[in-house]
Structure formats: structure tokens, C-alpha cells
């Protein structure tokens, strides 16, 4: 059976780089891999998803409702938006990070405060402070690679040589901090 990893977030959060590194690693480890992303209009501050499927044989590149083994959300409310795509016994990793949508920004409604509690009541949920971890490492932008680290740990993919994948795929100046970020992410999940 193919495994399905659903990465969701808000345009600009770096889900694309995270899924690129993930799929590169999976391919090198010998899996069949398919990945689907929607570009275009949805990128202008909208909700975005990267869908990664891997295994011995993969048919659809798209994850269906109730089909994801893991839902990794780079933003709190996005986890709620996509939760119907998770298998009932699937797990959630959610970044403890809010990006207020336009209606909230405009002061028309309020960002719900209880999303972590709601998620925990619905599925096995790990809340990760990826922004804080990235800040401690010295670059808030590696938040996405911290979250990649959590996926790797949660999906049991730690045996793949991620340091090499990072070295080969990110700019030399950012290799070290990204390696630290991926490790910090792995350590953030049990």
C-alpha cells in the first residue's frame, strides 16, 4: 500500500521546498514516488497543499478524502481545513503558528483560539513550535525544514541519508543550518 503524506500551509511558507526534499529522498531510497501540487491563483496568500505518495507502486498522485496517513500542517487553521483528508487513525503534526486570514486581518471575525484542543480531540496530534525552533537556530525561514524533520521521524524514514539530500539540493551557504533544522525537527517528535 502506498503511504500518503499531506503537507498543507499558506502560500509562501515553504511547503514546496519541504516536499521537494522529501520526494528526492524517497526516490533515492528506491520508492515509487508521486507528488502533486496546485500552483497559480491559490498562491496569492491562499491555502496550499503538497501531496506526496510513496510505496512499491503508486497510482494516483492525489490524496483522496480519508486517504492521508499523516497530515502535516504548517499553520494551525490549515490543519482544520484539511482534516477530512486524514485517515481516521492517521496522525497530525501541526506547527503552532497562526497566519490570520483576510477577514481576521480586517477585524471582521476572530481567529479561533482552541484549534490545538480541537485537533487533539479528533486525532493523534503533535504540536510543534517550529517557528521558535527555527528562530533559535538563527533563521526563521528554516521552519519548513524543521517540519520536514518531523515528517521523517513520524513516517520512520530516518534511515535515509538526509544530510546528503540537503547538501545536494540547497544553496551551500544554507546547508549547515538546514541540516540542524532537520535534526531539530526529528527530535521534536517522539
Amino acid at each position, binding site marked *: 500500500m502506498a503511504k500518503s503524506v499531506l503537507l498543507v500551509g499558506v502560500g509562501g511558507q515553504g511547503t514546496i521546498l519541504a516536499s521537494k526534499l522529501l520526494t528526492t529522498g524517497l526516490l533515492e531510497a528506491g520508492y515509487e514516488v508521486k507528488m502533486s501540487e496546485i*500552483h497559480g491563483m491559490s498562491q496569492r496568500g491562499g491555502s496550499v497543499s503538497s501531496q506526496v505518495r510513496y510505496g512499491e507502486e503508486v497510482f494516483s*498522485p492525489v490524496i483522496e478524502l480519508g486517504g492521508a496517513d499523516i497530515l502535516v500542517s504548517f499553520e494551525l487553521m490549515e490543519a482544520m481545513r484539511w482534516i*477530512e483528508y486524514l485517515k481516521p487513525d492517521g496522525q497530525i503534526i501541526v506547527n503552532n503558528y497562526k497566519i490570520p*486570514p483576510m477577514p481576521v486581518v480586517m477585524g471582521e471575525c476572530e481567529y479561533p483560539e482552541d484549534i490545538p484542543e480541537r485537533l487533539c480531540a479528533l486525532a493523534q496530534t503533535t504540536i510543534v513550535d517550529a517557528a521558535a525552533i527555527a528562530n533559535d537556530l538563527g533563521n526563521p525561514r528554516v521552519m519548513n525544514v524543521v517540519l520536514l524533520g518531523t515528517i521523517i521521524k513520524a513516517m520512520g524514514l530516518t534511515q535515509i541519508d538526509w544530510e546528503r539530500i540537503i547538501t545536494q539540493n540547497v544553496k551551500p551557504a544554507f546547508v549547515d543550518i538546514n541540516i540542524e533544522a532537520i535534526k531539530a525537527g526529528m527530535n521534536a517528535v517522539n
Partner: protein
Amino acid sequence: MRTLMTGDEAIARGAYEAGVVFAAAYPGTPSTEILENLAHYPEIYSEWSPNEKVALEGAIGASIAGGRAIASMKHVGLNVAADPLFTFAYTGVNGGTVIITADEPGQYSSQNEQDNRNYAKAAKIPMLEPSDSQECLDMTKLAFDISEQFDTPVLIRMTTRVCHSKSPVITGERPEVTLKPYERKGNKYVCVPAVAKKLRVNIESRTAKLKEFSEKCIYNKAEYNAESNIGVISSGISYYYAKEVFGSGVSHLKLAMTWPLPLDLIKDFCDRMEKIYIIEENDPYLEEAVRALGFKPLGKDIFPPYDEMTPDTIRKSLFGETLPTISADTEVVINRPPTLCAGCPHRGFFYEIAKRKNVMISGDIGCYTLGMAPPYNAMDSTICMGASLSIGHGAQRVFDMTDRGTRVVSVLGDSTFFHTGMNSLLNVAYNQSNTINVILDNRITGMTGHQDNPGSGYTASGESAPMIKIEDVAKAFGFRNIRVVNPNDLQQVSDVLDELLALDEPSVLITRWPCALKKFSPEDKMEFAGAYTDKFAVDQDTCIGCKLCMKAGCPALSFDTKAKKAAISRTQCLGCSVCAQVCPKDAIKKEVRQNG
């Protein structure tokens, strides 16, 4: 070596390996990345054309001259290119020619959903439908061979999920390329009636040969399961969706050459089945062919004729339910509608035009279509690219028949102006409707991710090019009232609108400021010195919480409902100053830059 590629990248790679020498396109999701990738191969001459018709015509010229050529476009782009397409089907090719149509079931970034398999049938042009990236590469190469072997252009139909999904690809090499000799052949390429009538007859024998080819084409394949009498017929990405739901417990007929269809193969497959399902996105294209063979398949009577046929949709149609899901109260989830970016130069224009009464705003397609959304709500129509100026013209003529005094302000972007807006502006110049024709010139094709265009000063491969000035075009058309303003200066925008609305003859208004996300060229840096270097902040003591700044609709602004104060996100602010001009209390101020 196996690498992961999107379908778009794989099409480009396939064209490279097929020895293509000429590539032309106009951007459009989900096809844009095909030309972006082609432009990376120095062996291929690649260009952004002003529109899809021009792109296809360039490819036709390259083919006649003896080179292999490719033109790529989104589904609606093929409507624009349909005129040359239908007659190119008659002439056939010299160098092999392939046209990519990227359809959008689900309309993620499109104004409509249309099934361009119908074009293959209507124009009598062979069509291939790849399902994954390896097939994109392989079928592109095959398409060029078919094109030359049968003397016909070939269509490849992609869909969003094929274009933008990644799957493993094994690449090959580019052969030594030799151009075909060129000869004048009036009886092949000059479609006067006498020639075209003969060519029309030839199409019939070509089609018969193509059908024979389709029957044997290795990509049209039946996978039989002797244990089952259920058969599933699909093409493109739908094949993988069907496999996901039905697995290998049934027989599958995967069709890849979908015009002309391998009807004998289909008949043979259907003859062995008790029950036939047809899984296809959008129109009942395969279904109608199967019905015409006398079978009674289950198709659009149970599956929807719109949107994507993802596995959950198939399951719901078949079994009444999807896989089990977590049922959550998703009412807490707030929408994230797309918005004009912080610093977007379209904001100033829409902020001002939104305040005008008794105007019809004839809109167009681009980032600026977001002017239709709150807080501006400033758009009355959007149909297709370039249409704003001509729809505005027609509307103004009818408004003039009433005594309401309604004025039309038509609005489109620079790339859209060069695409087909120019023709429409010519009509305004010729037939003199009393319209205000606004071109929001942000010096780039923004919506589709920053492709160069005739006004940007650069080519697809990044070389410098003549910069075509919109005001010069308008001048050449004979407009007497042409104004150029900085859209970030609200007073200037307001004054010019007053002036032009008071005229009783047509006018052209160009708002010029580069896109906030644009990578500035050296010329931009000179022309727009200092752009996007400031930061603004709200002085919390002066802010009276009136929320007027929120009417600017900038994502960098937020309003704290408890403290009743506005705030600006420093990281998001790009210093356009529009909100500062809106504030009635001067509470929004430019940060004083530190010396040093």
C-alpha cells in the same frame, strides 16, 4: 538515471530529445512551465509570444521552414489559436509540430472548464493524452514522429494534475538535428479554396491511416483480468484514479491516443465485459464513442461531467460514500480568499475607482481581477483575455442610449493589453465609444508568475529586447487623451479619473508601477528608483481606530478589535504608502531610515 519531474518539465525534456528547434508559448496555468523549461535548453530557440495564436503561427512557420516546432498553451489559449489550428490540419507539416493544450478540470486558475479533446475531433488532428511524467516525455517524442510520418500537426492534451504532478522519469539524449530542406509548395501551404478542397479530401485517407496506427499504438493498452467481467475505460490522469479505486481486480483499457480512437480495440474490450465503466474528466468524449459502438457503459449518468475525477469523487459516485473520514466541525475554518499582495500597484487604482458612482467597470483577466473582491467590489464583468476594452465599448454604446449617463471604465494589465487588448483598443479608436481605457502596467505578466512580455524589455531566455511602450501604441491609434500616472499616488489617480470622466471622447489611462514581486531589471532600478524600500508604521497614539485604512485591503495591515487600533506588519510592508494616504489622522508614517 531516474529523476522526479513534473509533466511540464517532462514535455520540455521530450521536445529537447525530439530535436525541437523552435518553441513558442503564451503563459497560462497549468502550461506555463513548459516554455520556461524549454528556454533553459540553449539548442532550442524559445519565445514568449504576445498570444497563443501568434505562438502557434510562429510554430507553423518554423515547421514549414523545416524545423521541429512546439507551441504550448492553456485550454482557453487554444480557443485563441483555433483559427490557424484548423487550417494547419489541412496543410500538414514539414518539420514535425506538436501543440500542447493544458486543460483545467476543477478550474483552479481558470475562467472556465473545457474539454479540448473535442478540438482534436473537430480539427481532425491526432491527439495523445499522457498520464504521468514518463509518458509526457515519451509521448512528446512519439508525437513528433507521428507528425512527420503522417504529415499532420499533433495535439497533446495535458490536465492540471499531469502538468503539476511529479513522478520519476528516465531521460535520454538529444540526437544530431538536421533541418528538413525547404521548397516552395503552393499546393500544400497556400490554402486558397482550390488547394484547400484537395487537402480536405486527403485528410480522410490520413485519418484512416492514423486510426490503423492508433489500433496498434502501444500506449493504448488493455490490461485483462480473467476473473472479472467488469471493464474500466479511461485516459490521461483518470487512468491512475481508476486504478486507485478499482485496483487490478477488474480489466482496464487505458487509452492514450484519443483521436482517432482505436475503435476495434475498444470494441474487442467491451465485447468481453458485462459491465463497463468510463472514467473521464469533463465531457463524455470516450463514452459517446463507446455508445456509438452499441454498448451501454456507465459514464456521465453516474459520474459528474465537471470538476476532477479524483478517487474520492469516483468512490462517492459508485458507492455513495468516500473512504471513512474524521468528521469535524469545520465551521471554525475561515476562508483565505486570494488578495492583492502587499505593495501591489493595482491597489491604488481600485481604491479610487471603487469610490465612483454610476460607472461600469469592465474587467479582464490577471491579478487585477481581484479588484472584484472586497473591500473594493469594483468589477462588473470578466470574460476572457483582452475583452475588457471591447466589452466596455459595446456596453458604453448601449448606456449612451439611456439618459442615465453611465460611463464605462475598462481595465486590463500590460500583458493582457499586448495579448488581445490591442485589437480591442483599436476598435475604440476606430468606432469612438466614450470609454476610459485603463492599462495597469506593472511591467510584467504577474498572475502566471512573472513572464516577460513585449513591454518588459526582455525575452523568454532573459536577453534584452526592445521595450514596446503602451502610450506609443495608443498614440499611433490616434488617441488624443493619453495619461500616465503613478497608481500609488491616490490624489493623482483621483484627479485624472475626474478629468477623463468629464471628457466626451475616449481616453487611455496608463497606471505605471512595477509589480511588488518583480525581480527588478537594471532599467527598472533606474526608472523606479527607490521603489519598495520604505516601511510604514501606525502611530498607536494618533490612530483613532476608524478602520478607514482597512479599505485599502492590504494584507500587511491588521486591525486589533480589542485595542481598536490598526497595525502594519513590518516584514510584509513594502512602503507603497497607499494606507498612509487613506488615513484621515496622519497616523501612518514612513519610518525614518537610520543613517549608516
